[in-house]
């Protein structure tokens, strides 16, 4: 008798599995405890007049606050773009066979990652005191064009330099990790086809590195959104400063801090949605079937319930 025949005893065909599920009493306890805590928190937020919700709502869409939101957003976008572009260059330099480039990139990362971004912002704002003029010309020799530092670096540029150059140091390490995560066989296959180093990087390595690069970059973007509040050091005015200004003027600082935080939360949520779709785009080819987007999932649920 073969093992298959032995296993298949006549007349005893096991049916569908109908087991008694395991009970989870711990879950019920957790529901009660957390439910009570949430109820207490909601109650205090609604009933305590110090939150001053009407005052928050009154100011949430006022001109200075909306201007602050806009400034925060575009500072974040531009600083992140600077960080990304410069970060890719630094990462490629660090991985290049040229020891001078490697050393220079290492030094940059060491310097900009090792000092507070707040200090860097102040330095860019006050660099005019250090160097009154900036000239283009022969090194150590004659100058062709000379600029006044204050006109070359107005506050907005100082804010962007401070944020963007600092971010580049972090992005460089993120991009480097992404490049290192790509299998060496990919580079070899590209070289064997006669592709140059730069073409291989652009067409083969970086697109694959993006899968690893995107999640921490989303993290960095959200972090940047909040770090922009430090540009007050320059000084340059964004959401938090404008909100606090209203709070100080009206002697109600606390509600304005909460209102600003809610704005940051709203912007973060939008960024997280964007990140989800970017991740999905770069998952192409690495998973057999792309996961459904939330919209597709909803639609699927509806069509299925219609069938029933």
């Amino acid at each position, binding site marked *: 008798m073969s093992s298959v025949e032995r296993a298949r005893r006549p007349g005893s065909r096991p049916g569908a599995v109908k087991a008694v599920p395991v009970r989870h009493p711990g879950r019920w306890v957790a529901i009660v405890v957390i439910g009570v805590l949430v109820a207490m928190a909601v109650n205090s937020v609604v009933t305590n007049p110090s939150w001053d919700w009407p005052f928050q709502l009154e100011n949430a869409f006022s001109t200075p606050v909306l201007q602050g939101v806009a400034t925060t957003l575009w500072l974040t976008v531009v600083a992140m773009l600077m960080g990304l572009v410069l970060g890719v260059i630094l990462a490629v330099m660090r991985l290049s066979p040229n020891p001078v480039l490697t050393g220079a990139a290492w030094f940059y990362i060491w310097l900009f990652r090792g000092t507070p971004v707040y200090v860097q912002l102040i330095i860019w704002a006050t660099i005019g005191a250090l160097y009154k003029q900036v000239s283009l010309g022969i090194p150590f020799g004659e100058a062709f064009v000379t600029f006044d530092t204050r006109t070359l670096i107005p506050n907005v540029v100082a804010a962007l330099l401070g944020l963007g150059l600092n971010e580049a140091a972090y992005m460089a390490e993120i991009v480097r990790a992404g490049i290192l995560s790509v*299998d060496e*066989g*990919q580079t*070899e*296959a*590209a*070289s*064997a*086809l*006669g*592709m*140059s*180093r730069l*073409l291989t990087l652009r*067409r*083969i390595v970086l*697109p*694959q590195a993006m899968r690893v690069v995107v999640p921490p970059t989303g993290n960095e973007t959200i972090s940047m959104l909040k770090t922009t509040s430090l540009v007050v050091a320059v000084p340059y005015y964004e959401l938090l400063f404008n909100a606090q200004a209203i709070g100080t003027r009206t002697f109600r600082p606390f509600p304005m801090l909460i209102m600003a935080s809610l704005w940051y939360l709203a912007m973060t949520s939008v960024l997280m949605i964007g990140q989800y779709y970017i991740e999905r785009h*770069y998952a*192409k*080819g*690495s*998973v*057999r079937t792309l996961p459904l987007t939330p919209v597709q999932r909803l639609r699927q649920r509806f069509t299925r319930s219609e069938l029933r």
Partner: protein
Amino acid sequence: MSTEVRPPMVTAEQVEKWFGRTQVLKGIDLEVAEKEVCCIIGPSGSGKSTFLRCINHLEVVDAGRLSVAGELIGYRQRGDKLHEMREREVARQRQDIGMVFQRFNLFPHMTAMQNIMEAPVRVKGENRAVAQERAQRLLDRVGLGERADAYPSQLSGGQQQRVAIARALAMEPRLMLFDEPTSALDPELVGDVLDVMRQLAEDGMTMIVVTHEMGFAREVGDSLVFMDDGVVVEAGAPREMLAAPRHVRTKAFLSKVL
């Protein structure tokens, strides 16, 4: 009509290669003629893959001379001095040498079609329509005409390897290098890949194949090389060598794999 003497497709003279303090190639001499199919066998660690990778300069040789179609690989000789080639020149040489890897190394973020079109379009600057037409022809030829839009992760190992062969052929190479092309495949998928390679040999492609497939070596190969410990131990006609190896090391190896 003048009978022009054409140089052999590949000539290796006393090729040596070191990895740190270990010498992996200890003076390899080998000549492969045009349209010849040369199979290299040997135990793992014998240096056969390393030698193959030297031929398209993925590994740099430390001593000896290696040339393809009479042209030194990776170096230029001026007088009695060797000059390293620029990256661009090495890339130019590699365009004529196709390579197929054990682990396929398809680009996972591109479809089969895009994998094949990439190098002709980006490296040679070929017209997209022309490249696409050739890619489709190559896919048909390896029996995957229907799978042009599939990503590598949606293909079986054997299908991936056939796409990889098509990708190498798209550059219209004069020489094809195969580095254990069937070693990473499930046994039932090996046949399809070997069939494609057999067809390629019949079409007159010059091929150097590092392999463990003795049947392929016997039936398709024009010459057989047995390498062990960084040297060529024995070389000759495949049928004779497989039937009656002369050297003890060849005998010992063949008794284990046949």
